[in-house]
């Protein structure tokens, strides 16, 4: 009969000397066991509920995104940035787990910078797309990143969607995230050939707003990024702010003019500028320490 012994930390360390350490496996099992006390402490992943959209117009690409980040049913960030920099001419909107979209786009941006230095050419959108899809496919969908990738390069203006399992689409207009149906409805109703920049920006703005108002996972402000063949990149952070706080306290903060509270009496006490705290006899070996504390008050 084997009896279960509880081990103290040093015993545990000794038992696991050498070879593989499976301590974390026990922890994983405990977390998955359904034990309420343990599993309730695990924080929910921060997700971007999200509406993201992109459209190809006559001179380039317009990307748009809302700005709400959620942890379960709580909005943890009312104004986060979902349009990520990939290269000077390539940007990427991200939906899904915030950590995954942020880190994946940073990684591929870094890879593309190295690639650019190595080849001496401007990065291409399909290169970013290929790097992203290869990484996401490798992780078989466990990296929860759904992306709308757009940019302008030597081959023209391109817009792609990248799904968490690693598949991609190339489209004239695309939406992703929980608000994608609302945004896509606006696109399907309003898209036409040969849009100019003004029409494209207006359409993306309407699409993101459809997500903000009709989807609970999306909200906050509208971010727009215009990537143009002729005028380069114009990042319009908070292009529209339709959810401003209605009641604000005075911008100066809690400043109340003298006399707001009536002063009935006043008394002033001056403290001695220098106080000596007498030292107490110590049991420690180091009697040489100066145990007097002097407090100087100017």
């Amino acid at each position, binding site marked *: 009969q084997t009896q279960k012994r509880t081990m103290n930390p040093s015993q545990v360390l000794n038992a696991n000397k050498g070879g593989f350490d499976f301590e974390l496996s026990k922890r994983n099992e405990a977390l998955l066991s359904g034990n309420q006390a343990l599993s309730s402490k695990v924080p929910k992943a921060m997700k971007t509920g999200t509406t993201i959209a992109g459209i*190809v117009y006559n001179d380039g690409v317009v990307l748009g995104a809302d700005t709400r980040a959620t942890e379960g049913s709580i909005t943890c960030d009312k104004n986060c940035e979902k349009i990520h920099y990939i290269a000077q001419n390539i940007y990427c909107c991200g939906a899904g787990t915030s950590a995954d979209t942020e880190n994946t786009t940073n990684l591929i941006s870094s890879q593309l910078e190295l690639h650019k230095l190595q080849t001496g050419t401007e990065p291409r959108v*399909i290169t970013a797309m290929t790097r992203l899809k290869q990484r996401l496919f490798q992780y078989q969908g466990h990296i929860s990143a759904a992306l709308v990738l757009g940019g302008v390069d*030597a*081959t*023209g*203006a*391109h*817009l792609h969607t990248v799904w968490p399992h690693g598949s991609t689409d*190339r*489209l*004239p207009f695309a939406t992703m995230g929980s608000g994608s*149906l*609302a945004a*896509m*409805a*606006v696109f*399907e*109703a309003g*898209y*036409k*050939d*040969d849009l100019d920049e003004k029409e494209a920006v207006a359409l993306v703005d*309407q699409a993101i707003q*459809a997500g903000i*108002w*009709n989807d609970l996972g999306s909200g906050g402000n509208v971010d727009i990024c215009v990537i143009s*063949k002729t005028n380069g990149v114009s990042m319009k952070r908070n292009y529209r702010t339709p959810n401003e706080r209605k009641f604000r306290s005075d911008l100066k903060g809690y400043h109340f003019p003298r006399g707001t509270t009536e002063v009935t009496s006043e008394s002033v006490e001056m403290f001695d500028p220098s106080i000596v705290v007498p030292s107490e006899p110590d049991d420690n070996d180091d009697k040489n320490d100066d145990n007097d504390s002097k407090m100087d008050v100017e």
Partner: protein
Amino acid sequence: MTSRFQAASSEVSPIQHTVSPYVVGASVLAIKYRDGVMMIADTMGSYGNMARFKDFHRLHKVNSTTAMGASGELSDLQYIRDMLEELTLGDFQQDDGSQLTAKEVHSYLARVLYNRRSRVNPLWNELVVAGVEPGPNGQAFLGTVDLYGSNYEEDIIATGYGQYIAMPLLRREWRADMTKQEARTLLEKCMTVLFYRHCRQINRYTLSDVTADGVDISEPFELEVKWNYKQFVVPTAQQSLVQ
């Protein structure tokens, strides 16, 4: 001895409850407008991934002031239609000039559906009831009931995928004083967008229009769809590098 038990178990089967729908109808959209209420639905009955019935009419005239549309399990729609016909027939037989109003039909259906839900044997539908009160200054009525018995009245209603795809468009563009043509155009636009994006819908619709003059349910019609945007025909990747 054993044969008696065997006979008993083979003759008596347990009571079955609806756990999933089989033949289903897609979205129904409905809006109030200046002269009354307009409702639209496609004419498909899907059997899972199969487009099984392509001429199934899901909008039904209840009586001269009320129309009903349904999405979800179509056999339950037919059962509900029979129930309502019984009620209408009863009114007719009374012959006292009084009919069930749309509000009453809505209330009746809400109670029936909630009762079924409470017995855990639902009628697997989302119903839309549209009507206009008889007489001068008759108020327009538009309400919905779902398989749980949740019910409410609204100026714009969409069921199924219509809630995700058509509602954002309807909420943006609906006005209380729309004309008949404007209302029709709006519903048709929303149905076209739904047809683009809903895999279980076809491009064949019936429209019901309820006004003070009565209930009119149209013959099936098709809508224009566009598949040949430039960038779908010649994708950007294949466009010439010389711009």
